[in-house]
């Protein structure tokens, strides 16, 4: 049954985004807030705001019982978890089901399976999705050489009991594999009391690509193209693009097919993202994991498809089927998003909460801003420091970069430092312009130079 009143268990820009999507569907909205978020854009825009608890997330946004109670008692028949917080915790959809509330997301059992790395990998293997080439247990130095030759160098020797980089050695050839076996095994014994090793292909300059999926829960799954999120700092994405311009059309078709097959194999319901490592030299991709939620960077897929993913999420949770067929999903042009954080890039990205005194975002064709900010708005220190996402769409990647650069120039923010200057510098860098980047490019190549210039 279609949802009539939707509870939004999140904050910031995504809470506002969900409120607007629901209102476009003529659905009433109730937003959950913490004590620190009483006066936010989402709370004002919604039909009602309910104060869960104090500012601390553990006592507000991370308490599933308070959330489901508030949803039920405020008369909601649907609940959208947004991203982060409890969005991928099976307890939330389980409690929703117990209390007759439609959860906007996958089944709790699917969330559990996808959250377990080993089970998710097994699921991918069963669906025929490529995984990073690797070995079973390696018993001797000679084994290590033989497996290394088979997998292809460079390879990573890893402690089977390991974690945190200990008992981990990179080998670039057979000799290094033999020597590395002795070293990694000794390290593993010292660290974990277990010298068992396995090997995996090491991709030194990988890109991060991911496929936007939407399933009806009955085996039918659509994709909305891929995104390239290779500009990362400490595994946090800073800039996302769609499509991945470094990928051939052939490989792109295979990537989409793999992602759809994976999601269809578990009758995936609602929005999800299959993440892959993309080895550009070899033109191969390997499965990483599935994110069982709407993602921060979903707008780039919306921009190239012209399709509102959040509205579709809400419709599907209300029991509707997919509103389009795959052949109706037409992808065009190029979109880029940058995440704007209230951080001081010159002080090691120190989060800088405070009051925004001036907020004048750019406007114009092909420019979209997803933000809950305005002049006078407060950025509380209790949560992540993202103040918005600036997204542009243009015919080509080069046009999109030019449009984004102009949009950043037109963006005036005062009161708190933001990462807008950082984004301006990244997209002007010759490596970014030529699309010669990888997931460690920002930290290894860009930031050392940026730090010097800033100092």
């Amino acid at each position, binding site marked *: 049954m279609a949802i009539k009143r939707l509870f939004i268990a999140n904050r910031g820009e995504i809470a506002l985004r969900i409120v607007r999507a629901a209102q476009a569907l003529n659905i009433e909205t109730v937003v959950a807030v913490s004590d620190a978020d009483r006066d936010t854009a989402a709370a004002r825009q919604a039909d009602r705001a*309910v104060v869960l*608890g104090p500012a601390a997330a553990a006592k507000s946004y991370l308490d599933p*019982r308070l959330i489901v109670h508030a949803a039920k008692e405020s008369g909601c028949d649907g609940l959208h978890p947004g991203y982060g917080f409890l969005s991928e915790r099976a307890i939330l959809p389980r409690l929703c089901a117990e209390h007759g509330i439609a959860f906007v997301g996958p089944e709790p059992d699917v969330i559990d399976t996808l959250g377990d790395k080993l089970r998710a990998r097994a699921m991918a293997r069963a669906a025929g999705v490529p995984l990073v080439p690797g070995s079973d247990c390696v018993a001797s130095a000679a084994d290590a050489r033989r497996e290394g030759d088979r997998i292809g160098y460079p390879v990573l020797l890893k402690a089977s009991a390991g974690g945190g980089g200990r008992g981990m050695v990179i080998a670039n050839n057979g000799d290094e594999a033999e020597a590395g076996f002795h070293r990694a095994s000794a390290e593993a014994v010292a660290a974990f009391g277990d010298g068992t090793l396995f090997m995996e292909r090491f991709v030194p300059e990988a890109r991060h690509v991911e496929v936007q999926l939407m399933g009806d829960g009955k085996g039918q799954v659509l994709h909305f193209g891929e995104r390239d999120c290779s500009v990362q700092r400490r595994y946090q994405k800073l800039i996302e693009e769609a499509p991945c311009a470094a990928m051939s059309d052939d490989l792109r078709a295979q990537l989409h097919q793999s992602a759809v097959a994976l999601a269809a194999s578990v009758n995936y319901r609602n929005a999800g993202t299959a993440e892959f490592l993309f080895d550009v030299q070899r033109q191969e991709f390997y499965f990483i994991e599935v994110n069982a939620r709407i993602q921060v960077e979903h707008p780039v897929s919306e921009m190239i498809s012209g399709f509102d993913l959040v509205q579709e999420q809400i419709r599907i949770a209300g029991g509707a089927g997919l509103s389009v067929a795959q052949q109706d999903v037409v992808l065009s042009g190029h979109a880029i998003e940058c995440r704007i954080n209230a951080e001081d890039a010159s002080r090691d990205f120190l989060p800088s909460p405070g009051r925004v005194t001036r907020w004048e975002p750019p406007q114009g064709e092909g420019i979209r801003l997803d933000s809950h900010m305005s002049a006078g708005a407060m950025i509380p220190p209790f949560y992540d420091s993202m103040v918005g996402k600036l997204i542009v769409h243009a015919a080509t990647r080069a046009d999109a970069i030019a449009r984004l650069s102009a949009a950043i120039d037109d963006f005036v923010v005062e009161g708190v430092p933001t990462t807008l200057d950082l984004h301006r510098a990244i997209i002007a860098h010759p490596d970014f312009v030529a699309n010669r980047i990888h997931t460690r490019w920002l930290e290894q190549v860009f930031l050392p130079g940026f730090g010097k210039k800033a100092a």
Partner: protein
Amino acid sequence: MSLEKDPAIQAITDVRALLDTLLSSGWQELHVVSDDTEIFLARKGGGPNPMRAIAPASAAAAPAALAAAGPETAVKAPHVATLVDALPVGTVVTAGQKVATVRVLDESETIEAPISGTIIRHDAAAGELVDYGATLLNIQAAA
């Protein structure tokens, strides 16, 4: 206004000094009474709080009309919840006594009186979904 002259800061400083005095002594408890302030500090296992012992006795003895002269204290919801029930207006309660019940899903939670006094007003009705920090009822301290 300098921070040193702020009366609240001064009070905290004074209490800290008293606490230090107690902790560096061999005493079990410390009871200080001045013109307008009374404070009782005790180690774990120290004597009962004489200030608490007096309050319920006077509240119980005083007629409600006389008690309705002290300051009001709001009893607030500790988190979002549904108010199940509350003691009626006019009830004389002692600190720590149950004054209301709230519920989250199927779990009930007791709300206790923070002070001794008389319930003078309800700000929420039974069955109502109350926000974190919303006032459930008000207690007026015994004079």
